[in-house]
């Protein structure tokens, strides 16, 4: 038994490989609505979207008119010279539109993509946050 090292690197060659096929690949590929989770707290909302295979560069995120739209192109492995002998998944692209509440401060929306999981932080406007009101005894 030999242990093998698993490394994380920017896969540049993979990207280069894919540039040529992008046009052809996206034409016949399926686009799906990604799996997501929405959490909420006092400060706002946190949206987590599963987009495995999508790199930061091939992900588009837009906030406009109360909508958050997402589009992600997943990378094909680019292994055409191999026979695919077993398949449990197909490379799919992702597209989704979420309606966001008015209380969200669209200027300070933040997004982070880590290993196929996109986290979008949607903070509430300062004026919309719950305020504690001091009760004064008279």
């Amino acid at each position, binding site marked *: *038994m*030999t*242990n*093998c*090292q*698993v*490394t*994380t*690197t*920017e*896969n540049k060659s*993979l990207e280069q490989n894919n540039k040529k096929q992008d046009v052809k690949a996206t034409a016949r590929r399926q686009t799906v609505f990604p799996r997501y*989770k929405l959490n909420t707290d006092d400060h706002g909302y946190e949206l*987590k979207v*599963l*987009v*495995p*295979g*999508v*790199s930061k560069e091939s992900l588009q995120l837009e906030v406009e008119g109360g909508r958050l739209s997402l589009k992600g192109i997943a*990378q094909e*492995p680019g*292994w055409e*010279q*191999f*026979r*695919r*002998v*077993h*398949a*449990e*998944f197909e490379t799919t692209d992702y597209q989704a539109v979420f309606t966001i509440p008015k209380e969200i401060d669209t200027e300070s929306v933040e997004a982070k993509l*880590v*290993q*196929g*999981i996109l*986290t979008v932080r949607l903070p509430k406007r300062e004026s919309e946050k719950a305020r504690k009101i001091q009760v004064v005894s008279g």
Partner: protein
Amino acid sequence: MFRLLDTPVFLDHPFRELNRLQETLRHFGRHESSSFRNADLPLNLYLSDNEARLAVVLPGWNAEWIDLTVDGNRLFLKGEVPEGESLPVEGLSTTFQRSVNLPFQIDAEQVSANYTNGVLSITALRLESDKPKQIQVELG
């Protein structure tokens, strides 16, 4: 019968095994691979004469949590989210175990794995001594 893949095991979800069984029954009689189609951490296997490539969808993992072992013609893939750590999204499997039987012996020194954008890619090369050799036929 020679099988390339084992059945996936998801240790943290006992019901998942049951679901998988149902899924297998649903696909009974069809091609073998279709029974895993709804597995949480799907795997694709690609082969050429002297090389095998694997792609596993593992969103949100950390490369250190994945353990890859080679034994003869078998590739073992194991993953566990360590205690105190968690995946960024709740509800995903936190342990998994898969093994792949390749049709040739693997050169353990030449196995490489890369984890990018939530997809684990593994390359395994055939052992030099396992490759077919041409034998010269001599005239007697």
